[in-house]
């Protein structure tokens, strides 16, 4: 098998706080190839953003400590790489966009200056050339009147336009991997559709690997090629988008799909998942989902099910995965 573009393997992260050690990531595996979209799906606290921050090398430390695993870009280990090398990769090869564009952008500089900053420091461009390139990038992400707006400050843009500015900024150095952390969560639905279309177009055009982090099962169904579902700091299911929605092979994924209201049907009653996600300082023994799982058996309280590959190429971290596949 060819080396994947970006690969995360067995990643473990702890947050050491005054109240004890929170096991935030407990062995995360995923990979993304050029030209494909991997969706990382999970609720708040499942570890999806921490994984992304660790990949980018912007994990806050302390309290975050990487205790194991590996992150490889084109086969090159990142966790042990020299800080200078990591800086080089950041932005240039792996770029990231965040949920809240207003707090991710600096309010005192013009957007043109902020987009151009990378070009000046990394590519040694002059101020004028960098601004020219910034105009092109703003144009590319569909900001009308880019030439005038390049001198505007972030607060002069609407939420959707700010997210476009951030996308433009992430594209400045032509990265191969783009990590989008909840890029549309703060946006209205009509604007969300615009931004998702833009991301899909850019990704197809540049043949980038896109990691889309989200909690929205609808957004995932519209854009993803593959999905990794996270729960309590682990991937619990991994499959291509069609098989995952047609036949979820982990009780958590199954329960999630049954618990969301859908716009295309009225539905009668939602089957809610009982209980709460576990506290990361006290993850239950065995399968972390067992206290909320309708299928839980004795074994589930003792054995931690590994993320096992099933015959169809998908994987699931459930002891009963094979029964679930059979339906």
């Amino acid at each position, binding site marked *: 098998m060819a080396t994947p573009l970006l690969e995360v393997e067995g990643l473990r992260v702890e947050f050491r706080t005054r109240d004890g050690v929170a096991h935030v990531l407990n062995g995360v595996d995923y990979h993304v190839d050029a030209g494909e979209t991997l969706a990382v799906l999970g609720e708040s606290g499942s570890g999806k953003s921490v994984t992304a921050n660790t990949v980018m090398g912007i994990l806050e430390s302390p309290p975050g400590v990487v205790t194991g695993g590996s992150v490889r870009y084109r086969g090159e280990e990142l966790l042990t790489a020299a800080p200078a090398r990591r800086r080089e990769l950041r932005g240039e090869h792996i770029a990231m966009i965040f949920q809240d564009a207003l707090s991710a952008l600096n309010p005192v500089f013009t957007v043109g200056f902020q987009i151009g900053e990378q070009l000046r420091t990394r590519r040694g461009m002059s101020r004028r050339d960098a601004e020219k390139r910034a105009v092109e990038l703003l144009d590319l992400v569909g900001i009308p009147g880019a030439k005038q707006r390049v001198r505007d400050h972030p607060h002069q843009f*609407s939420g959707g*336009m700010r997210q476009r500015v951030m996308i433009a900024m992430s594209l400045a150095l032509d990265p191969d991997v783009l990590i989008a952390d909840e890029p549309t969560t703060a946006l209205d639905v009509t604007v969300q559709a615009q931004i998702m279309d833009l991301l899909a177009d850019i990704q197809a055009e540049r043949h980038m690997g896109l990691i889309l982090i989200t909690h929205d099962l609808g957004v995932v169904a*519209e854009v993803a090629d593959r999905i990794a579902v996270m729960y309590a700091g682990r991937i619990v299911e991994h499959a291509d988008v069609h098989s995952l929605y047609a036949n979820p092979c982990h009780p958590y994924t199954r329960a999630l799909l049954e618990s969301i209201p859908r716009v295309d049907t009225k539905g009668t009653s939602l089957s809610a998942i009982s209980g709460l996600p576990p506290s990361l300082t006290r993850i239950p023994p065995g399968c972390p989902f067992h206290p909320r799982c309708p299928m839980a058996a004795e074994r589930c309280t003792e054995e931690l099910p590994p993320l096992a590959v099933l015959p169809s190429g998908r994987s699931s971290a459930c002891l009963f995965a094979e029964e679930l596949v059979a339906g």
Partner: protein
Amino acid sequence: MSAPNLSVPILEVDDLVKHFPVQTGIVLKRTVGHVRAVDGVSFALHKGETLGVVGESGCGKSTLAQVLMRLEPPTSGRVRFHGEDVFAKRGRELQALRRSIQIVLQDPYTSLNPRMTVGDIVGEPFDIHPDVAPKGERRKKVQDLLDVVGLNPEHINRYPHQFSGGQRQRIGIARALALKPEVIICDEPVSALDVSIQAQVMNLLDELQREFGLSYLFIAHDLSVVRHLSDRVAVMYLGKIVEIGTEEEIYGRPSHPYTQALLSAVPVPDPAVRAARARIRLTGDVPSPVNPPSGCRFRTRCWKATEICEVEEPELVTRGAGHHPSACHHAEEQTLLPST
């Protein structure tokens, strides 16, 4: 869902307007314009019914909730509760009215006082309305309420920070139920919650409605959530209702271009239909409510806009072959969501 009684309107809203002045100057304030947050909204809410109000941020749906709660005075218009003018009430009468209309707020983290115990929060309505529960019975009443919303009655002495987001929202619901209201205004009650918790709270709202015969005005931006809970739905854009009808009419045969665009933008959690769906992509952003476009407010983003849209404001009426009121000169029913 229990069948709502459509013959008895509990709450009638008639041409309600709320403008906020935009002022400049520090000492000598000068009004330079008005934010037309709610600009002529009319609807009726019936007994046992859920009326969903959807719209994007800035469309005036939360201002509407605040005016209905009498937290903000209206600029003009009338609201009648059981036929009586809500804004004419003062003193004791107003207090009695407040008992009947309660609100559940969006953010369960900021809407509960962190220094009060759950018992104090849920029991506070009884301090203001002492005739509802005599002093000796209050603790018992609060525990009953906690039980009704699915919280452990023994947790009455805990503080809000000891609860999760979903549980806090249940506390907010218990507080709203304390005075046995007839109408509960739900302002984005589940949007701050995780997906797996959302369903629990939505099911709770549904059960409570059946048990107590409540009427809900359910305000949300999430079209899927609104569809799930509502009997009828009103779509708002820039301070006006652009389309109103039953859940089936709005989602199955929307006739206003804005509703159609909204529905086509909502992601459907089914990858099998993604290629087949009709897509309408709006360009640009919502115009400023300080200076809304002339005529139809949606015309600047509408693909159907013609000359008439610029000069004449379309009324919210049933047109031609339509089945429900729509504020568009070119209203035409269209099916956008894949049927399953």
